[in-house]
């Protein structure tokens, strides 16, 4: 493996710091009402978030300093640990159930979300598999099939919780990595077609699914039921207009928009800072995606390159899906917006990912930079 010689990617780091600051600001503004009502303290969530941000920065620093060669070696053990955690979470008494989904393992005052661990573990193992035998991926049997089998098992385990959002993100990330690794385009097209055929089949078998899947296209058909969150989200974005209602001026946070400080934080940004604020956030995520993929291209190592693709995809896909849900172009899936949504462990794991990405950015490049 090659040696480190450069500074970390400053643009990437800057974008992340900017998002973290916006996140702190919004976690206060959006959660003040809930904090006041449920904990008698409008700063309740902000105080917690500040702690998590520092924990996240610490985790990022650790990840930044890790020896990535060791990580290559530990890929398998880490995957096994992640899988065990996924199984543990389903053992009664150990897993914590919130809103009908068992996603947490309590460890004293801390709690861990195995799905966050598996995201990183999966990216790591895929990068290792694909980098070890680069030419295998051209073959369906030797290259693609084992990867898909592993993805299938992991997705199945996550769907046991159930957690559709994470499943989607992991599946999409894996696909991006397969494409980057050089999987034949017709293989991927065929897979995509097969997937589409399955979806069509499922819809034909039970038309109610179609209504559920496409409910997001017309939330007003069921304004108090399935369409409720989508409508409340639009009722936050719309009044925001170009410049927004101003910091702290959100109306929808007064218990109209559920999950406003987590899954729908982007709607809060759109309401308080308008089109300009929302677009700024989209641009920051664009920066992350751009720098992430740039790091992947510029590192002259297959493992590190694919690892960088996976880490960038994890953050990018999750952000795109979340913002797609909030603006009503994707159905409600229930995933958070990286850096901005309130939520402790998920922020820490995102920051670990970011730390690893920044770590990769310090490695030497042999060719000139492309993007």
């Amino acid at each position: 493996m090659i040696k480190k010689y450069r500074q970390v990617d400053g643009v990437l780091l800057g974008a992340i710091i900017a998002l973290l600051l916006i996140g702190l600001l919004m976690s206060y503004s959006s959660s003040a009402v809930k904090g006041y009502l449920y904990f008698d303290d409008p700063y309740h969530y902000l105080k917690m978030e500040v702690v998590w941000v520092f924990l996240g920065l610490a985790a990022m620093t650790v990840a930044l300093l890790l020896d990535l060669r060791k990580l290559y070696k530990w890929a398998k053990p880490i995957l096994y640990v992640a899988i065990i955690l996924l199984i543990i979470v389903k053992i009664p008494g150990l897993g914590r159930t919130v809103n009908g989904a068992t996603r947490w393992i309590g460890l004293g005052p801390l709690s861990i979300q195995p799905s966050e661990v598996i995201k990183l573990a999966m990216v790591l193992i895929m990068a290792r598999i694909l980098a070890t035998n680069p030419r295998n991926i051209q073959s369906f049997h030797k290259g693609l099939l084992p990867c898909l089998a592993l993805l299938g098992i992991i997705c199945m385990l996550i769907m046991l919780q159930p957690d559709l959002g994470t499943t989607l993100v992991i599946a999409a990330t894996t696909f991006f990595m397969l494409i980057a690794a050089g999987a034949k385009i017709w293989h991927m097209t065929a897979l995509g077609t097969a997937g589409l055929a399955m979806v069509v089949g499922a819809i034909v078998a039970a038309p109610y699914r179609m209504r559920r899947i496409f409910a997001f296209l017309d939330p007003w058909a069921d304004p108090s039921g399935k369409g409720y969150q989508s409508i409340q989200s639009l009722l936050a974005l719309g009044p925001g207009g170009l410049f927004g209602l101003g910091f702290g001026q959100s109306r929808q946070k007064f218990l109209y928009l559920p999950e406003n400080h987590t899954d729908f934080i982007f709607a809060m940004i759109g309401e308080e800072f308008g089109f300009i604020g929302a677009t700024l956030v989209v641009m920051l995520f664009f920066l992350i995606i751009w720098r992430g993929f740039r790091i992947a291209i510029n590192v002259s190592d297959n493992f590190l390159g694919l690892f960088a693709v996976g880490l960038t995809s994890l953050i990018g896909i999750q952000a795109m899906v979340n913002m797609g849900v909030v603006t009503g172009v994707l159905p409600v899936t229930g995933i958070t917006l990286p850096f901005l949504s309130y939520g402790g462990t998920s922020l820490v794991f995102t920051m670990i990912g970011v730390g690893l990405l920044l770590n990769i950015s310090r490695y030497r490049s042999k060719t000139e930079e492309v993007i």
Partner: protein
Amino acid sequence: MVQYLKMRKRIVLIFVLCSIFLVILIIRLGFVQLRDGPFLKNLADEEHYRGVPVAAKRGNIVDCNGNILAMSVSVDTVYAIPAEVRKSGKEDEIATLLAETLEMDKQAVKDRITKRTSLEYVKKKIPTETASIIKSMNLPGIGIVEDSTRFYPNDTMAAHILGFTGIDSQGLEGIEYSRDKELTGIPGSILTEYGANGIKIPGGDHEFIQPIQGNTVQLTIDKNIQSFAERELGKIMSGQGMNMEGRIPKNASILVMEPSTGRMLAIATAPTFNPNNYQAFDQSARRNIAIQNGYEPGSTFKIITLAAALEEKVVKTDEVFVDKGYINILGRNIHCWKDGGHGRQTMIEAVENSCNPVFIEMGQRLGMDRFYKYLTGFGFGKKTGIEMAGEAKGILANKKKATALDLATMSIGQTNNVTPIQLLTAVSAVANGGTLLEPQIVQEITSPSGEVIVPFKKEVVQRVISESTAKLTREILESVVTNGTGRRTFLPGYRVAGKTGTAQKVGQGGYIQGDYVASFIGFAPADNPRLVVFVVMDGVPFYGGVVAAPVVQAVMLDSLKYLGVKPDPNAPLAPGKPLYGVEFPAVRKEAIVPSVLGYPRAEGEGILKKEGFKVMVEGTGTTIIDQIPYGDAKVEAGSTVQLYLGAEVGQQTLAPWKEVLDPDIEAIEQFGPRLPISMNQNLLE
């Protein structure tokens, strides 16, 4: 490094895909926030804002000269926002305080202020002083909103026409009911932003949407003429009716119409009620018998028979009839009201005498078809269309089954059931030259800024008789007053025309003796009638010519003078035939009424009495707040001045409406908008 170069291209591909998605996202944001923004903001506002309705001030009802008959007075309404009351945790304390101040039951208050609604009224229409006490308590979740209540400054005056309103200021009867839409206005609202949990958003926006005051309804009713009519009714109902020997009829009505336009100048009915305090009166007092009750009119109806006979030229004015006291129809004798009959008489004399056999003869000459043609032509058997709820149609004998005997009795005003307003409208057609009009009660509708929204419109139903027939009929009717049964209506210096009526009432097995509906219908001046005055008294043992005619005379004289109708120099100063026991008032000198507005009662009365006026007083209080006729009016010396008492000039006394307040709001709300219409008992079926 084949693998490596391929990977770079693939990553660029993924990066481009992601970028496209982000561009789509920004475009979508633009659509949602910029294009649909205003629309979505409206939706969001609808969700966030909750309004406390602010009642619009109900429009006034005024008479044809703009005198206020019904007005709105500011009061307050106490409301609660139960979510805030519950949040404060002081439900009990608040309920106790409110119950004490509002004199309500504590549990009832508590139930109301903790109800699971977004807004609940605690008590409506409380005096502003009480409201300010509550305001100063600063109770969480309790608010005060301006409201208005109805006040009728003249109390009982024109009560049946005006009607009244309920607790939500909704019109329940009369013009208040029929013109509710125009009077109501558009309620405003105090809008405040609320969270989804029903708690006010701190620092949220407030918006006050100004209510729009209702329109003013101007009636054709003239307060002065209405008060002349009510003054006479007052005399009758207090046992002071002329020739009544102290008797009081069951009920009575006086109607005054302007025949040329169909405008009703007065509709007075007794018994009556005070719309400020309508719950205190029996429902029967709220019945407008002049519109809602039918009766057998008797001889006043002979005007119709006469007009029809003249129009069809079946009689001539100089034709001579011999009345032997009865006429035999289908083997039955119908008697003239005068024992032994009137003997030889011309047709005009027969009308002067109200001779039954002659009118029956007229009916026979007309025949069934032509008689019915005029019956329906003059508007009997169907509603006149006057704007009063519950108007009766009256009942006509079935033409297919009617016998010659029916025709005979119909000719003299029996058998058929008609309403006073029908008869008045029909006689007005004779007075105005032969055109049946729809009686009008609303002059015009004006906006609060005084702009006329709905102007007056005369509604012609149809022409019934020719101008010449109408003129001839008027002249004959004038002769009835000058020479005949109507002499007690005679006014020296004015040409008055009219006809008496004494209807027998139907009881068990026939007509009841000694219990009549006495009536008189008259108009003046006979050559160009300005007024048609109709008086009906139900339940008297006297003839219409004796008890009803003097009432018409009084109302007519005051009204003609009030309207400035000059005495006709060609009019006779005494009736053609003296009437035993009746003295006609000499034409008295004119006198100018002094204004006593604002005077204490005793002083004002003193001034008027010194000037030779009689005084009638209405209302409670120490100060004279209104008078009719007004100061400087020229009236006949020695006439009556009506005084209205109150607390202060220019500010109507609030005492009556305070008494109206009923602690049990629900009980008031249960009143329906209309009363059931039961037919009068004197129907002939």
